[in-house]
């Protein structure tokens, strides 16, 4: 029974989880809880500062910024989830295969990962979109592919450590089939570190998506995204700084709290802080 919270172990997660949950709830229920239609123009209230009616003000077309920030968070979350999903799944698979088979397979897979790792995410996204057209889907794909080598290296390193453990050799000597060893004995040891990496990668994905949108390579207007909102706000930074500020703060809080969540998960999964 937990009488008290073990702060050394759960502290960071306890503090960051509310922010993370807030972001997810705000994006999931944006259409229901947003005070205005994020696309509705209202020429009577263009570039108005924060007020009781519009908590975060309005933009150059009179759209409610709070509603648009909430709507935009959906893109950020989806891009983050899908990109991290692609990266974590692909990377874990490649890492496990490389570690288990070793030798030539390992060398080929990991050298390939090194090559992918050399591409700046932005550049890969630009190349993809130059060929396939600009869309959020391509942004997700580009960011996801960029994440694969990181997850692959992490997984391979952890798996190799586990594979040298006597308990794993004991399993091999019992004749446990390879697939079962990888899935039952190695994978559970890999999941913890991958989860930690995923939280951090998620924040990085959100940041990257915003950067792409800022450059006009991600979500296309009128679809709001934090990146293109900041870009739009740039033109009005003197009269209406809140246009850029609001999505900027949202972006900062999201990235920061997911980074801390990653650190927090590390503490939770650290057996040394247990009990």
């Amino acid at each position, binding site marked *: 029974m937990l009488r008290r919270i073990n702060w050394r172990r759960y502290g960071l997660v306890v503090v960051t989880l509310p922010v993370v949950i807030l972001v997810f709830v705000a994006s999931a229920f944006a259409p229901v809880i947003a005070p205005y239609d994020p696309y509705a123009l209202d020429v009577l209230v263009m570039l108005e500062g924060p007020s009781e009616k519009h908590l975060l003000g309005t933009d150059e077309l009179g759209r409610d910024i709070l509603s648009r920030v909430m709507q935009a968070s959906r893109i950020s979350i989806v891009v983050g989830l899908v990109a991290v999903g692609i990266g974590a799944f692909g990377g874990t698979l490649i890492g496990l295969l490389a570690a288990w088979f070793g030798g030539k397979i390992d*060398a080929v897979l990991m050298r390939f990962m090194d090559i992918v790792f050399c591409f700046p995410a932005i550049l890969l996204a630009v190349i993809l979109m130059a060929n396939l057209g600009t869309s959020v889907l391509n942004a997700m794909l580009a960011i996801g592919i960029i994440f694969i080598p990181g997850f692959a290296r992490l997984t391979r390193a952890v798996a190799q450590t586990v594979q040298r*453990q*006597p*308990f*794993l*050799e*004991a*399993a*091999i*000597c*019992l*004749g*446990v089939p390879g697939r079962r060893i990888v899935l039952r*004995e190695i994978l*559970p*040891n890999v999941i913890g570190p991958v989860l930690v990496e995923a939280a951090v990668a998620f924040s990085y994905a959100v940041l990257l998506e915003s950067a792409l949108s800022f450059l006009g390579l991600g979500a296309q207007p009128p679809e709001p995204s934090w990146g293109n909102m900041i870009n739009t706000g740039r033109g009005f930074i003197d009269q209406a700084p809140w246009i850029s500020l609001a999505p900027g703060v949202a972006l900062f809080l999201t990235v920061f709290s997911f980074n801390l969540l990653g650190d927090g998960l590390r503490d939770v999964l650290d*057996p040394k802080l247990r009990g």
Partner: protein
Amino acid sequence: MLVAARNLRKTFRSGGLFRRGAGVLALDDVSFSLAEGESLGVVGESGSGKSTLLRTILRLTPYDAGSVTFDGAEIAAMDRGALRRFRQRVQPVFQNPYSTFNPRFSVGASIALGFELLGNVDKADIPGEVARLLDDVGLDPDLASALPHQLSGGQRQRAAIARALAVKPDLLLLDEPTSALDVSVQAQVLNLFKDLQGRYAFSLMLVTHDLPVVTFMCDNVLVMKSGAIVERGETGTLVRDPESDYTRKLVSSAV
């Protein structure tokens, strides 16, 4: 002969894409055999190749040249089925009792694995068989539900022996099985090996740096140095009347 090794060679190479390391000769033309029912000790210091020899016989480390046969069959050439049967007849017990069990599974689940793979026991009867095995190695059967870190070093080593015995092996390969244990716990575990050998009738190969452990446990002994066998013989004779300088040095250091 249960195990026969002929002219085994193994070199560990370091190096990467553009570099070929000098390499360490871990096994240098090693030949020996082990008869059914025999207890064979392998003594040597770190880097003597004794652990590599054991891992080679377990088919955990491939060798470069020579041959190893188990019950007449070359272990490097075994197909799937033959390998599965080989795995069930040869079992290891490793040195480090702290990492010999997967920390995520209960001790009982790890021991049950052997029965599941062998498939000779009804699923419903496995918990009973696990309890019987734990009792055989002198552990409370209730420990089946314990996680590895809840056991002491000596208890874990007993549990590791139980896991190895689940498949009723013909040959047990022990790699420094007691060097991480306290003297009084070592005595219990060594006695246990002797008792179990009487009951389960397995052959035994014991790799250690500790000559007295070998003289207590084994009929015959191989002395290894720098990957090669420098001397072999009946344990008592070898200790009383060592032939090579190196064995003499080992014997005099062990007092």
